[in-house]
């Protein structure tokens, strides 16, 4: 049985274990029908031209883990931003781990999707926001919607900001030979409220893991949301991240994506600007080797006038790694005075590495500033000579230049400890002894 059939037929099993008599389940039922009609995307579709899901579909994934696994904190401490205090929503093989988590209801709700989807007190929020910005027809999103049950639920009411950042971490332990996870996150940040989130998916095994995640982010007037995705997973882990952001007037939402590993990673990042004077920021650093593959698909839809979007993606590709950047910007006719900027710079450090970079601009307004630039190149010889002339060996000098190349994306990271952590990851990834503490 192929994966699609298995998923569709297991929907009945899924229904056995949940309350099916509610609005949310109507949404799920519609979604599974949609997925059944569409199936997994194939390379024939333009948006999936460079990323194939064929090999993943051949794996016999378990859809519902049979047993809970325990993890000792000391064994996974390094995956947490343990240098600072954070709220934590942690899942092990898709199941919430209260032991590793720290949730709160102190003025804000930082807790579980399973609670939000079932308890009456959350119903008003769920009714307004759940599945409202996520696509109703993109097949992987509908697949996630059909099985939506667990994930992170974050609700920050008007004028509030949680005391500390929130970490959402998914561990997979290898208890199953192959595991498919479908976390579903809902993040609502009301007027004048603020939130910082760090998300990571970490496989602790060499067994296959396939995560198809959907996150909906709603930023109301004047809200500020900073979302950091840390993707440094094992070479047997694949991730499809579908993030949908709905922004209202003068809100600022930034998503930083750090892609340093994993077998196949696809980031579908969609921003919808439903208001004026909005800023949407998308930044990424990708450093890949071996046969790793990352595909960044971004979309910014400028729906109203006087808004901005800023995209800056940097990639360093070695060995046989492959990368894709596809940045789509739509500016509606009414969205005058839009400023949309997009940059994608890449360095190939191996003859066998590949990058496909494609800007896609659809501009229907006439008074806008849109710029896009994409470069693919090698390291600057003059810069290399400069470093070497100071006694720094060529290999180290190359690494230092790559480090510098990737580094300026980090400037906008607002959590200093996270910035330091990512700096170190970049240095390690580039295999350089920089000779100093970062």
């Amino acid at each position, binding site marked *: 049985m192929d994966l699609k059939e298995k998923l569709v037929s297991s929907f009945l099993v899924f229904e056995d274990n949940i309350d099916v008599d509610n609005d949310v389940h109507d949404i799920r039922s519609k979604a599974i029908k949609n997925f059944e009609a569409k199936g997994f995307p194939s390379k024939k579709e333009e948006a999936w031209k460079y990323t194939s899901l064929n090999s993943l579909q051949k794996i016999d994934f378990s859809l519902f883990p049979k047993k809970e696994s325990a993890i000792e904190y000391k064994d996974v401490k390094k995956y947490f931003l343990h240098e600072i205090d954070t709220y934590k929503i942690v899942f092990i093989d898709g199941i919430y781990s209260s032991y590793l988590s720290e949730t709160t209801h102190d003025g804000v709700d930082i807790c579980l999707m399973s609670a939000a989807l079932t308890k009456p007190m959350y119903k008003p929020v769920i009714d307004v926001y759940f599945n409202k910005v996520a696509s109703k027809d993109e097949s992987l999103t509908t697949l996630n919607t059909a099985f939506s049950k667990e994930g992170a639920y974050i609700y920050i009411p008007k004028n509030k900001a949680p005391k500390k950042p929130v970490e959402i971490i998914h561990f997979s332990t290898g208890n199953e030979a192959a595991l498919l996870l479908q976390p579903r996150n809902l993040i609502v940040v009301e007027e004048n409220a603020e939130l910082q989130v760090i998300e990571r998916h970490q496989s602790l095994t060499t067994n296959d893991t396939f995560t198809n995640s959907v996150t909906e982010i709603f930023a109301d007037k004047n809200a500020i949301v900073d979302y950091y995705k840390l993707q440094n997973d094992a070479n047997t882990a694949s991730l499809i991240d579908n993030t949908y952001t709905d922004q209202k007037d003068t809100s600022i939402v930034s998503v930083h994506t750090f892609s340093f590993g994993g077998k196949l990673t696809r980031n579908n990042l969609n921003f919808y600007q439903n208001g004026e004077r909005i800023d949407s920021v998308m930044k990424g650093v990708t450093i890949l080797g071996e046969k790793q593959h990352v595909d960044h698909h971004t979309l910014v839809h400028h729906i109203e006038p006087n808004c901005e979007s800023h995209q800056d993606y940097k990639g360093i590709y070695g060995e046989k790694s492959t990368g894709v950047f596809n940045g789509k910007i739509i500016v509606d006719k009414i969205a005058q005075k839009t400023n949309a900027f997009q940059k994608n710079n890449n360095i190939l450090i191996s003859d066998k590495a590949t990058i496909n970079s494609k800007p896609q601009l659809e501009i229907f307004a006439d008074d806008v500033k849109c710029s896009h630039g994409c470069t693919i190149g090698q390291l*600057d*010889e*003059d*810069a290399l*000579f*400069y*470093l*070497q*002339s*100071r*006694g*720094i*060996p*060529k290999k*180290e*000098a190359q690494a*230092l*230049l790559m*480090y*510098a190349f990737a*580094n*300026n994306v*980090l400037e906008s990271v607002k959590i200093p400890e996270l910035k330091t952590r990512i*700096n170190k990851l970049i240095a390690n990834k580039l295999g350089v002894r*920089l*000779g*100093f503490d970062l």
Partner: protein
Amino acid sequence: MLKINNLHAQVEDKEILKGINLEVKAGEVHAIMGPNGAGKSTLASVIAGKEEFEVTKGDVVLDGENLEEDSPEERAHKGVFLSFQYPVEIPGVSVTNFVKTAINESRKARGEEDMPAKDMLKLIREKSDLLEIDRKFLSRSLNEGFSGGEKKRNEIFQMAMLEPKLAILDETDSGLDIDALRIVANGVNKLKSKDNAVIVITHYQRLLDYIVPDYVHVLHNGKIVKSGTKELALELEEKGYDWLKNETIES
């Protein structure tokens, strides 16, 4: 210390250095002057080992050792320093961290341990005072957003930290106002000793008022066409380069 014998160098089949002979002894300051395109910067780059330039004839010898096979970093480890006309910006790496890395790489190459942090700090303090560099400046990203003057001062700061045997200053005076020029020149003068040597490459005589050369050479069309003492620089300032070009043709 440095002996350059009949040096020919080319880039992409275009010969730029056409037989340079130069000897620099320890304790000396040499100035190399000449019009644009004479090959001054190329000479500096070739001594420092830039791979883009192909040495087709002749050699560069440092303390009796032919540098031909040495990479730029190996030359640096042996005590060659080139102050760049256009220093490169390295975002995310502070001046301090860069200098530390450079010093420790040289030490590693000589089989020495890393410099202890305390000594490093002391040295940084001493040398930044010498060049009147603000401490805050040292934690900024290397050359990023630096003014022309800051870049040059930072180059000489690195030179002070690395204590090279042979320092080549390529157009260090360009982009400097008179105060910055004085500070930079003062730094270079204080670093001068009987054991090291300096080659100053410049278009104008101005810098040589502050860093007084023992010898002045005029480079034109890939060759040294005239050598003399510091008075030659004054003569050039007065007459320009044209009279020399003519003289060369006559001779």
